[in-house]
């Protein structure tokens, strides 16, 4: 299979963005590019299926998704090695899937079932799979930017070539903790990648009421690089994240990556988005990240049937996961009082790292001095032949 270089594209408004070619071997194989499509489809179809469960009354509370933002979580997480760590936001289900989570655990979590990632202790997207190196988010945004910085601080103190990555929306950049995190990461030159998802609205508040100066311009003032990429171009997001992760591993400190995108659904299922002009939605609808990527693959000669088979396989997977999730029992009420305190500390596990770059790595010589970088290839992890 021939390697295909990452291509950068302009953002949705057509303005030029960072588009230099990768300096390193941040190349994607054909398999990698299909995997990107697969994870985006997994996210889209899982969220669509879960929205149905919500409308069927199977989900307490509300429902939040990342429709239109699939390229960001998937592209960014795809750049990470097994031993890297993630704090994922509620718009980035795809990042969980890249790291190895299966959709049934996500759906069960939404339904408050015992089979959910948190066993019913927390809802919706407030989860992180410990075994896969993820720390679950909290509702206060962007609190995880500091937690990710702390993960990175541990890597730095131990001299490990590892990266922490976290996601936040542009709304979060107005909060004081965002400043505290950027400043701390800048002062300590922490190996952390900050993924800023500018999806145009903080709930209903548009960019112009959120900040006077574009947050990406602030990166420089914290002492590190900030770049803007097309958040609907999965390969552009991937390329920027891969370069930022390499820079972090090399001791170059943090990077702020702004991904310009559009939240195509309401803030939650309870939000009809009446504040968004219809033309704006129409413009972004034409730039759907999944269709953009699929069209690009087709244009570059990928077998159309193979892409269709991929869609069908993902659809089947999501359906079987939904069945498994619905069959998962409710948690035993007794467990409500369990687990407030820990008996012991246990390490995070390594995540799945499907990018082919990690395929050939000798497990004994990874950045993990204890050889923690084990199986890294996640292809076919869910029995989907890509």
């Amino acid at each position, binding site marked *: 299979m021939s390697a295909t270089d990452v291509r950068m594209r302009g953002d949705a408004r057509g303005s030029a963005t960072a588009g230099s070619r990768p300096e390193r071997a941040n190349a994607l194989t054909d398999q990698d590019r299909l995997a990107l499509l697969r994870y985006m489809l997994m996210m889209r179809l899982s969220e669509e299926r879960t929205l149905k469960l919500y409308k069927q009354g199977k989900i307490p509370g509300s429902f939040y998704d990342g429709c239109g933002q699939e390229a960001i979580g998937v592209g960014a997480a795809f750049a990470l090695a097994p031993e890297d760590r993630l704090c994922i936001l509620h718009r980035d289900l795809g990042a969980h899937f890249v790291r190895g989570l299966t959709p049934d655990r996500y759906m069960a979590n939404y339904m408050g079932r015992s089979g959910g990632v948190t066993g019913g202790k927390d809802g919706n997207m407030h989860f992180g799979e410990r075994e896969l190196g993820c720390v679950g988010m909290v509702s206060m945004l962007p*609190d995880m930017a500091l937690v990710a910085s*702390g993960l*990175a601080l*541990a890597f730095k*103190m131990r001299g*490990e070539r590892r990266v922490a990555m976290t996601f936040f929306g542009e709304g979060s950049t107005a909060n004081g903790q965002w400043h505290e995190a950027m*400043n701390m990461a800048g002062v300590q030159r922490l190996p952390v990648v900050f993924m800023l998802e500018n999806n145009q609205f903080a709930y209903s508040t548009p960019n112009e009421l959120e900040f006077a100066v574009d947050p990406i311009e602030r990166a420089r003032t914290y002492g590190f690089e900030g770049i803007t990429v097309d958040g609907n171009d999965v390969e552009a997001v991937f390329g920027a994240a891969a370069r930022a992760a390499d820079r972090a591993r090399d001791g170059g400190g943090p990077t702020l990556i702004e991904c310009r995108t559009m939240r195509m659904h309401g803030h939650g299922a309870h939000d009809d988005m009446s504040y968004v002009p219809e033309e704006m939605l129409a413009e972004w609808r034409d730039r759907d990240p999944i269709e953009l990527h699929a069209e690009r693959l087709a244009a570059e000669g990928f077998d159309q049937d193979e892409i269709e088979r991929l869609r069908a396989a993902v659809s089947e997977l999501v359906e079987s996961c939904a069945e498994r999730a619905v069959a998962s029992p409710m948690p035993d009420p007794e467990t409500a009082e369990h687990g407030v305190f*820990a008996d012991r*500390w246990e390490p995070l596990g390594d995540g799945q790292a499907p990018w082919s770059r990690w395929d050939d790595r000798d497990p004994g010589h990874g950045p993990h*001095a204890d050889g923690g970088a084990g199986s890294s290839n996640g292809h076919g992890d869910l029995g989907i032949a890509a």
Partner: protein
Amino acid sequence: MSGGTITRLEPSTPRGGGESAAASELTYLEAISDALRTEMRRDETVFCLGEDIGAFGGAFKVTDGFIEEFGEARVLDTPLAENAIIGTAVGAAIEGMRPVCEMQFADFISCGFDQLVNVAGKMHYRQGLAVPIVVRLPSGGGFSGGPFHSQNPEAWFMQAPGLKVVAPATAADAKGLLVSAIRDPNPVCFLEHKGLYRSVKGEVPAGEHTVPIGAARRVREGEEMTVIAYGSAVLLAEQAAEELGGSIEVLDLRTLVPLDRDAVLAAARKTGKVLIAHEATASAGVGAEVAALISERAFEDLDAPVRRLCAADVPIPFSPPLEQRVLPQLDDMKEALDELARY
């Protein structure tokens, strides 16, 4: 744990806590330094972070000389950002480090409350991730610190499930509880009373010394009435009991979460007359919790209404006569005990 590349600096001449003897007389503050130094030498994942703790040695000099021994990576001077201190500590702890955060004054925890309460406190319950951090909180008044340098915020943490709360009253307990807090896999709020820093001295075992979290300490035995206290109020109770000369039992809670309920109930049942004393404000405080526990579980052993001696529900004022009026004084303690004895 990954085999990290932390290079341990050769220890320089130990400062403060002489370790040659099996036990030595240390101040409360020296005992805290000794605990930190002992744990940092024992375990290379232990590190300190906070404002002005490095070259300056901390606002109260707890980490004086640490940067020379342990290096600036492990005695991390941070920007003035309390959420950043606690938030990065949470991340580092999840990744296997044992951070000890210093709030310059306990009062400033309000600026780091979100990370402490919402992230650290709830992490294990929600996600099954242990967060072994210690937050050191120099607390307490009596020195004209005013409304922002004198508070005793422990009840805030008792309202936030997932946080352990300790408040030592002696030098030996200060060391033993801090060592236990560092080794505990949970977030621990360590309330160190500034008034005790240099005024309290006592024998402190050198080297390994732990005091279990969750166990109260009987300071003094008595039959007539019981004072339940912690922190600076323990000293007040001891002194009042000495001066009054009655048969007064004094119980030092030492840990507020988890509360040693058995010890509280035993001490209450023994005499049937209970005074709960602390320097923090009264309403919905530790005293309220302890009094509720006693009335629920030891009602039929009570011989007098449970009484509290606490700070008035006001911000701690600056001017000495005002502050003295607000904070419990020795005379207040004696008066309360006298009334309880006569009841």
